[in-house]
């Protein structure tokens, strides 16, 4: 069992991965593109750094470098994971040990230099929103752990004591149809309400611990929302829905939201934001992959086993009075079970 933590870094100045395809509603392209480009950039950056170190320190390429970026002893002593030598470069890529890191039992893809992170001004200047996606293949029983882990990473990345808004997205739900009216009806039977309500105390706990000032939901139609509100202690104050072309909030939902003091916000995310196949491709040996996973055809080295995406968290820090997005990015958690 290996826990993988994937990250995009700050994507607002990252170029093409933020560009929205015209008309492409509900997409995970931003996540997948920015992960891919961050992997690539990390491979280049850390390979360069290593090359510089090996020259200046006159030590071999497998040393931990020790002088810079990759803190926490991430490389030294961890040359072997899953019984596979990670030091072997695959397909011209630098070896995984160079650009990934182990910390607290998890493999960080890529390695993160936490010292360089944080916001430019004090956290009070920002509106920080985190959106947590519970993914369909992951066990519901672990959600407390996922939520904690996801939020911890966001707060560490931004060096903020809390997020202003934590939005939760449950699997198996969507707000789609010919028009929003239709979407609202279809929505009523979607998801797994028992699981969703059972999960909520986990989120409430984060709120009570002061880590999330306000809570929100995603993709809740009128019926689901009204049932949900009756069963929870700490009520969501936001419901994110997806809009297609018609731009009409179904009147029952609008009315309910108004009565209950819930803001209806817009989003354009996929609910199933990181399917297993996508993740495998991102980490795999293919042309667009990071070369972290073993190549089943050639048997070339790398990580092996079943991959299960568990959670994704998207975070955004907007300078409050200026409407400037200073930091936006994603973390994703996945489990690799050795065969």
């Amino acid at each position, binding site marked *: 069992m290996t826990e993988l933590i994937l990250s995009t870094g*700050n994507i*607002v100045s*990252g*170029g093409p991965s933020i560009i929205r395809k015209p008309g492409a509603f509900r997409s995970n392209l931003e996540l997948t593109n920015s992960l891919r480009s961050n992997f690539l950039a990390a491979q280049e950056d850390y390979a360069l750094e290593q090359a510089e170190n090996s020259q200046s320190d006159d030590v071999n390429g497998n040393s931990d470098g020790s002088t810079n970026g990759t803190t926490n002893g991430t490389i030294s002593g961890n040359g072997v994971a899953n019984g596979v030598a990670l030091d072997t470069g695959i397909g011209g890529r630098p070896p995984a040990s160079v650009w990934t890191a182990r910390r607290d039992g998890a493999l960080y893809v890529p390695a993160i230099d936490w010292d*360089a992170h*944080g916001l430019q001004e004090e956290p009070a200047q920002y509106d920080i929103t985190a959106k947590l996606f519970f993914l369909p293949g992951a066990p519901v029983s672990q959600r407390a752990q996922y939520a904690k882990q996801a939020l911890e990473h966001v707060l560490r990345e*931004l060096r903020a004591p809390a997020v202003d808004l934590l939005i939760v997205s449950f699997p198996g739900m969507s707000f789609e149809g010919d028009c929003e009216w239709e979407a609202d009806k279809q929505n009523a039977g979607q998801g797994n309400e028992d699981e969703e309500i059972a999960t909520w105390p986990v989120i409430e706990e984060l709120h009570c611990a002061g880590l999330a000032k306000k809570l929100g939901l995603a993709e809740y139609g009128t019926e689901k929302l009204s049932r949900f509100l009756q069963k929870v202690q700490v009520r969501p104050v936001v419901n994110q829905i997806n809009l297609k072309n018609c731009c009409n909030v179904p009147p029952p939902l609008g009315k309910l939201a108004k009565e209950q003091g819930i803001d209806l916000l817009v989003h354009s995310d996929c609910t199933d934001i990181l399917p297993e196949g996508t993740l495998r491709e991102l980490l795999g040996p293919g042309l667009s992959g990071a070369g972290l996973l073993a190549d089943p055809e050639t048997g070339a080295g790398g990580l092996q086993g079943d991959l299960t995406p568990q959670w994704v968290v998207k975070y955004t820090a907007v300078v409050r009075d200026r409407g*400037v997005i200073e930091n936006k990015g994603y973390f994703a958690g996945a489990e690799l079970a050795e065969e």
Partner: protein
Amino acid sequence: MGLLALGTALDWPDAKKQAQLVRSWGIKQLLEIWNKAKGKERDIMLWGDEVEYLVVTYSKDDPKILLSLRQADILEALASDKALSKARCCSDGSGSPSSQPPPVFHPEFGRFMLEATPGKPWGIGFRELLEVEPNMKLRRCIAKDHMLPNEYPITLTTFPRLGSPGVFTDPYYPASGSKLRSQFVPDEIANPHIRFPTLAANIRSRRGRKVQVNVPVFRDEKTPWPWRDPTVNYDLHQWPEDDDVRNGAAPDNFIHMDAMAFGMGSCCLQITFQAKNLTEGRQMYDQLSPLGPIMLALTAATPIYKGFLADTDVRWNQISRAVDDRTPEEMGEKPLVNDRWRIPKSRYASNSTYISEDPRLRPEYFDADLVIDEDIKQQLLDGGMDDRLATHFAHLFIRDPIVIFSEDLQELDLTKTDHFENIQSTNWQHMRFKPPPADNSIGWRVEFRPMEIQITDFENAAFTVFLVLVTRVILSYNLNFYIPIRRVDENMETAHARDAVLQKRFFFRRNLFPAVRAPRSAAGSGTSTPIPSRPPTPAGPVEDEYRLMTVNEIINGTAYARGTPTQADRDAAGESEGDFPGLMPLVESYLDSVNVDVATRCRLAAYLELIRKRASGELCTAARWIREFVEKHPEYGRDSVVGEKITKDLVERVIKVGEAEARGEGGMEGLGLGGLLGR
């Protein structure tokens, strides 16, 4: 227009003698502000829009539409009404409870004009963006309420028959007054406040002749060719300047105009942004600069001058020429003897330099021949200003002050900025970089000035909101729009062409993002970057950084433009040189990243759709709409002449559109607006 001080205005020969004093005091005042305000930090994002109106008289039975010259009375009626916001206009059906104090009305150069601004600046709350349109409607409604029943505020950029033979003002005054000496418009066309006639007279006097505003005429099937402006009188002998037309001031195939009112009588839509600090202000100034010509072409609304269809679509160059105070020596027509330098552009022109200390700003982007006053630059450097900003102000200060009040010359008051503003505010470039006022109470600001006013407040709000969002996108994504400043000049010229939005291509930067991804740290501009960044890519030739693009590509992106090709897109087909993301997809990406409620996002979507379709040609510009209105009019003889009946019907339509818009949604049917607004 700022506050209008009263006093004794000096005529040109006397003003000229004081020019050096005003400049030197202006520089001292500038340094005073600079030292006080250079460290100002964390000002919040505030912004304001300015809408300008023409006031016309119209009644159904009167065959004539006239410009009302009652500006002063209307302003007085507005000023004396303390309960502006309680007017009947509040029940406009917008339903949005506004926290705004009543709007503010200002005089403008033209005595037939009015300017209105919101009662206080806007912030960046997204719901606040939705208050802009109701507020603009409120302004129009309040203005109308303080006019005579037959007077209407309209938002056409120019009055189609300004300067045409016959009567076009109410009341009527004869032309050829002593101040303007125009053979087409009376002195009374200008705001009577001493500042304005002095401005016009001193520009003319400094220049040594009248201003020459020549616009190419649109050649229609039956337009005589070569075309000689039939309204020009070559036989006037009242003023020395009457010789101008006999000396070639009115060339063939151009509509000839000869007074400041033809330019400064145009209405535009201007937006001013407050930056968080000096650095951000300079960044916004530079990055918005290359967008100026694009937004000018996209807002084109000025196809008629003096009763003729023009071959251009925008007002810009006409204003530029209408206030061009350069002498023949400065213009390069005579050897430099008395004047200090040749000056390539009018005081009203596109920006001539960049001002940011951005490392992405390459030396090649500057104009190597920028004219500056070296002594003034040295004073600014000695006073602690950096080279780039000192260069900018030393360029603005090559101009003479035009209007000087003798009362202001008694002693230098460093708690004021009047002398600095005298030069600064008569440099009408397409961007204006505004230092904080003397009391330092507000921040560094940047004014975006090229956009043309639109017929409806829906459109004016759409362009305003779009530009506000674009500034947030620029700052969030740290976009880089730099191209050589001379290319921005060229684009400004290109923007004038008839239907430039669909027919022309503009120089624009290929890649708005850094060539190398920023270090993977959160703090983009943090001081420590422990992760080694790759060596900077050696900068290639500047010419490779940009290419010609259509407005469709620039606004909507290459992918969208391929699906909705404009004529310019088709012309460029086959020489496609790489994809461009488009400003609109970047705005959408920004909106996807911030928390916006459904109703707000939908309203914003309507604005963005208008811009998108204007850029792709799915909707037409006001200029195209007006041209089509004229072309389809039964009285139009295909000879470029826009007669009184056509003018009346056009303005009547515009008034009806305004009334329908004020009544609320749905009243626009039958007004022929489908092609303009798409609804």
